[in-house]
């Protein structure tokens, strides 16, 4: 992609976001919508700025919880994914179980975690972890299981051990799948954290939003939403950049197509 084309794409994205906020602002003004129902974006942003000293520790709490849960989910996810993906038998055996686990609504597990560990950070971390775990397992396993047998045969004929084949072919080959899942997983980890915070915690953005809506402080609740969206975008962007640096080879087609 040429630089100008990329710039134009970024510009379009920015214009779309700005346009939606402007339309939202104008609609609220035009139809005299009460801030208790739907605050204007300008009100939300000013709340965000004014209440920042109070919000900041909660933002950090949510970010910390999410990252701990995400790292845990990533570690376990990669280990499970490799375990399931290295042999076709393991893959076929474990797949139904994985699908079953991943289709459990994560909101349903929060009360169980609270029952086991009490309210607070631990159930939030665990919810974040379980929420982001399965996309990683499924993607890593799929990446490994779909490795072309000919690629493996070249190494096996050289006398490579199973481990060497995994290290030199399987894992690099699964990297694009892994990173694709990380981008999804990190946003899902936020969902898990906030979910748990709204149910059973006394700090974090989820708690702030619960209390704000209980007090009919709708602009503050929206400020929490904005903070979450911004954090989500930042983390997504971080992983997109890392992915591009490590797995640039996997997106070669678009680069070839545009010269």
């Amino acid at each position, binding site marked *: 992609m040429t630089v100008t084309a990329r710039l134009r794409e970024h510009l379009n994205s920015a214009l779309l976001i700005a346009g939606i906020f402007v339309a939202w602002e104008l609609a609220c003004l035009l139809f005299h919508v009460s801030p208790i129902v739907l605050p204007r974006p300008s009100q939300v942003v000013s709340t965000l700025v004014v209440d920042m000293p109070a919000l900041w520790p909660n933002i950090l709490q949510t970010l910390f919880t999410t990252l701990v849960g995400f790292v845990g989910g990533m570690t376990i996810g990669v280990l499970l994914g490799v375990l399931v993906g290295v042999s076709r038998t393991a893959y076929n055996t474990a797949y139904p179980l994985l699908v079953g686990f991943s289709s459990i609504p994560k909101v349903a597990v929060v009360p169980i975690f609270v029952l086991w560990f009490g309210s607070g950070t631990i159930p939030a971390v665990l919810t974040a972890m379980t929420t982001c775990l399965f996309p990683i397992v499924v993607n890593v396993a799929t990446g490994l299981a779909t490795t072309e047998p*000919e690629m493996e*045969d*070249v190494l096996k*004929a*050289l*006398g490579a051990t199973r481990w060497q084949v995994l290290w*030199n*072919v399987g894992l690099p*080959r699964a990297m694009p799948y892994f990173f694709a899942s990380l981008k999804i997983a990190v946003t899902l980890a936020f969902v898990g954290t906030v979910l748990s915070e709204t149910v059973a915690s006394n700090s974090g953005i989820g708690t702030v939003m619960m209390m704000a809506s209980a007090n009919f402080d709708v602009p503050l609740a929206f400020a929490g939403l904005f903070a979450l969206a911004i954090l989500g975008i930042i983390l997504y962007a971080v992983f997109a950049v890392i992915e591009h640096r490590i797995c640039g080879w996997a997106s070669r087609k678009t680069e070839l197509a545009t010269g």
Partner: protein
Amino acid sequence: MSLAVAVEFLTPMPARRIVQLEDVKVRFGAGPTSFLALDRTSLTVHAGDFVAMVGPSGCGKSTILKLVTGLLRPTEGEVFVAGRQVGAERVGVGMAFQNPTMLPWLTIRQNVMLPLKIVEPYRSAFRAEKNGAFRDRAEALLAKVGLSGFGDRRPWELSGGMLQRANLCRALIHEPKLLMLDEPFGALDQFTREELWSILQALWMEARPTVFLVTHDLREAAFLATRILVMSARPGRVVEDRDVGFVRPRTIDTTYEEGFTALTHGLRSSIMAARQSEAKAS
């Protein structure tokens, strides 16, 4: 050249057996859907031979390659490589398929150097030599096949013919005693293919590895091989074993000489006969 000719004169003398198949049977699958891919095949290959295997499609040529490399175990019978039974321990053979299977996350040079990372005695020295002697060695080999300057490119930046050259380099970098080629030039155009024949011949004359070449192209077999095996239709057996004595280095002009045409014509008749017997059987 004189050396190569001399070696050819020596081959009829008792040479070292490097590959030996004894009454090998291979059956794929189980129950009513199973089929016999190879039936009581026996075969001896001497060190330094260039063996080409031709035959109707599905006759088990690739199965023999997989047996020798240890990727597949025989259902019955025994396979020996360099006097040792295959299976207990894999032999470090070089291998190249029709699909170049270059790993897209590595550069061409890194792809070529991959066997050095796996095979002893290079493996132990790999970390230290990665940017020194091994790198020069890869570059030198790439230069021999006409790819100097392409070491830092990525596989998708190269054409099919260039990838297949790099593929040959990867199969040869660790100087294997045994080189297995499964239709390596099958997907290339006529001219690129003929060019690669000459390159492969030169590489073979230089290091004299034992080569197993599976091919559909009878001219390719006749141009490259010292010995051609014709396989029957499935279940495969060796039905014909011919020595090819053309003087090396052979050139593309050789392929238009009378003896050469007669050989490929004869091979063609044998394969047609094998195919017809299959048609009758089924």
